[in-house]
């Protein structure tokens, strides 16, 4: 029993996190460059080739990887060496941990079926801030410090409204466990409409996506990075340290896509087909594939936003977080509570 459990869990970790998520993150670096180029009427990277094959530039992530592994790991003078090397790990590990509670398929197809599901995600994602602040502080560089301070302030502010946004989801589905939330989204409203999170909490979804993207520090909220001004908390990093920060950023895109798919798009649920997830066989395979499709779509959607919207000014980011998102999320909770009290 225990050995089977350990082996099964290891297989799930290998399959879902190490194969699906990490490889998808590597491919997303290619998608980001390719997508930005064709949105801007360019062709994008297509020069890396293996034996004459170019594969639309798909070998560029491999070339990047070889480059980051073989480049010199530079430590600036005056840097705190231990923390400087630890900071990328502090950024990467929490992001990888967050995948543990995401149900990628029905039944046992979740690495750890925690009852505290979404709360665990929030708790572990809160650790991500350590990577940013430690990386910025340990570099002994003013620009890095500035980026780290911006990043810390931004992540703290948006964590608040991100947490409040999903309270509506908790109230509607009556649980914080992601497995239970996905199960509850198999119900039908009025006998035909799938009760997905986006149907019952449309405002909640918009606010969640904005807050999540701001927490991920990507454009239009890339103030801590700000390529054209301060470069940000990883300005002193080279080689694999920098690559780890980048990887964790792209993994966070996937985390957001996974959480959004689970909370608002019914997780592995295919509408009107096997809502309890007990059918097994090819239906289970289709459900896992449909979950992967939703994750890919949401990753694409985040990239589309990233290449559409210009960067905010820093005070605009802060006032959007505290003066707009926070009141709106509170209003959303109030409205949800009133409707639930009247209807149920």
């Amino acid at each position, binding site marked *: 029993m225990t050995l089977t459990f350990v082996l099964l869990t290891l297989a799930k970790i290998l399959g879902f996190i190490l194969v699906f998520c990490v490889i998808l993150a590597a491919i997303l670096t290619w998608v980001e460059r390719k997508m930005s180029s*064709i949105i801007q*009427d360019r062709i994008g990277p297509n020069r890396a080739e293996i034996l004459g094959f170019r594969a639309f530039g798909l070998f560029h992530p491999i070339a990047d990887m070889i480059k980051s592994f073989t480049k010199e790991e530079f430590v600036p003078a005056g840097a705190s060496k231990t923390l400087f090397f630890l900071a990328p790990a502090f950024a990467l590990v929490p992001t990888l941990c967050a995948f543990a509670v995401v149900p990628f398929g029905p039944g046992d197809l979740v690495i750890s079926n925690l009852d505290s599901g979404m709360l665990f995600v929030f708790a572990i994602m809160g650790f991500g801030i350590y990577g940013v602040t430690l990386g910025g502080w340990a570099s002994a560089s003013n620009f890095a410090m500035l980026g780290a301070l911006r990043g810390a302030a931004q992540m703290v502010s948006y964590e608040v409204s991100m947490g409040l946004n999903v309270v509506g989801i908790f109230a509607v589905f009556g649980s914080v466990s992601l497995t239970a939330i996905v199960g509850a989204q198999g119900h039908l409203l009025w006998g035909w409409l799938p009760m997905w999170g986006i149907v019952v909490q449309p405002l909640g979804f*918009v606010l969640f996506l904005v807050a999540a993207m701001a927490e991920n520090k990507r454009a239009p909220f890339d103030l801590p990075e700000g390529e054209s001004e301060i470069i940000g908390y990883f300005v002193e990093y080279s080689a694999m340290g920098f690559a780890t920060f980048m990887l964790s950023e792209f993994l966070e895109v996937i985390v957001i896509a996974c959480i959004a798919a689970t909370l608002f798009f019914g997780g592995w649920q295919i509408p009107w087909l096997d809502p309890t997830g007990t059918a097994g066989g090819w239906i289970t395979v289709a459900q896992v594939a449909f979950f992967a499709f939703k994750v890919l779509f949401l990753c694409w959607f985040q990239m589309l936003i990233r290449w559409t*919207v210009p960067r905010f000014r820093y005070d605009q980011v802060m006032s959007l977080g505290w003066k707009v998102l926070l009141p709106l999320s509170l209003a959303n909770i109030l409205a949800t509570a009133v409707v639930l009290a009247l209807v149920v």
Partner: protein
Amino acid sequence: MVKVKVVERPPADLVVQSWLPELWKGMKVSGRHFFVNLLTQKGIVTSQYPEVKRAYPPRFRGKHRLMRREDGSVRCVACFMCSTACPADCISIVAGQRDDENEKFPVTFEVDFIKCVFCGMCEEACPCDAIRLDSGVHRAPAYTRKEELNGKEDLLSLGSLSVARQGGEFK
């Protein structure tokens, strides 16, 4: 007084300030570019440079070439019109006497491509249609200054037969 045209700022009404409708408009534009270029590559303006080269316009002025007569000898009569017209002073000619007729010819004819500005004045000054800039060959960078100094043989190797009447007379 300078006339100042005051441009009215568009009103920042609630629709604009709520930001989402404007975001939707922008997403429609970038989404359209994404799908059009993904499926048809219609809007892509990049040219794949080393493989696909842009054609130079017909009046492009490249390296000089020295033209030949029908018997293959050089058309140039060493009149120094080109080196006189040259604003960059990049043409240096040493003249000699031809054996077969009472005419001069260039013993050496050197163009210094470091100095040359490719203005085409030498081409216009030439009375014999002996020097042209229409070779279409781009001036390539070189490692030494000496390589930039192109002599008579280099310029003749780019040249070809000219059927204009010697002396530049119009028919």
